[in-house]
């Protein structure tokens, strides 16, 4: 059910928030907070997807499905992800990022990664696994975010 657009659902607000969340993700990774780095990296992508989608159609369905938000974005942006590098990174984000990561402890996050089954072959203990995964999510989010930024600039020329 679509809801009226509130302050946090305004494209300009979401655009600014996306950049701030990505910067916060980098800071969290710098402090070895792998759970928060992963959560914030994905959140920055989600914020920007919502900004792009709501700029076209101002209805927010309040769900956290990256694919659903991508489907509402301009086609020109979606097409920029259609490279081997773009598809691979998008796939990783959809597979690993969850909105409820913010509720997770380090142990729960490690459990999440183990359940996904994507951490085979990583040497080291739990911290090494979380670091590896968080860095990949952060790199993927940065990649997609750059594409989103170009799309946003095309949508909102100043």
């Amino acid at each position, binding site marked *: 059910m679509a809801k009226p657009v509130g302050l946090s659902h305004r494209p300009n607000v979401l655009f600014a928030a996306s950049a701030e969340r990505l910067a916060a993700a980098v800071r969290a990774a710098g402090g070895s907070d792998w759970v928060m780095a992963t959560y914030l990296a994905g959140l920055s992508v989600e914020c920007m997807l919502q900004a792009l989608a709501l700029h076209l159609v101002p209805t927010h369905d309040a769900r956290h499905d990256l694919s659903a938000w991508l489907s509402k974005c301009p086609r020109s942006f979606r097409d920029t992800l*259609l490279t081997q590098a773009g598809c691979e990174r*998008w796939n990783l984000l959809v597979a690993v990022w969850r909105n*409820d990561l913010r509720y997770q402890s380090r142990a729960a996050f490690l459990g999440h990664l183990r359940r996904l*089954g994507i951490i085979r072959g990583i040497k080291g203990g739990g911290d090494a696994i979380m670091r590896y995964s968080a860095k990949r999510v952060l790199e993927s989010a940065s990649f997609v975010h750059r594409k989103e930024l170009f799309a946003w600039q095309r949508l909102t020329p100043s």
Partner: protein
Amino acid sequence: MATVDTKLVRLLRREFSDLRRHLHIDRRDQSIVGYIVSPDFNRMTYAERQKRLWNVLTRHLDEAEMHWIGPIAALSPAEAETLPDGLATPRSTPRGRKTSRPSKR
């Protein structure tokens, strides 16, 4: 004549075992975006999954049909289990085994 989305689903079902899918089909925009789930993607890297998926698509769809294809994530059943839209539950399970739906937040 089959529509592109019908042909795509038929093709994906043929090429990937126990396929489930969540595709957003926009006929006005001629666009298909979303994700597919198959145990075939277990133990595959994301690069390998995308390579396999795009090999299938480019081998069987013509240029006009490929125009419809947007980013489609390829997920293992374990990855799909925690997605918010309920694709976690398999259509059929062995007798006596319970399935759980993902918690919604």
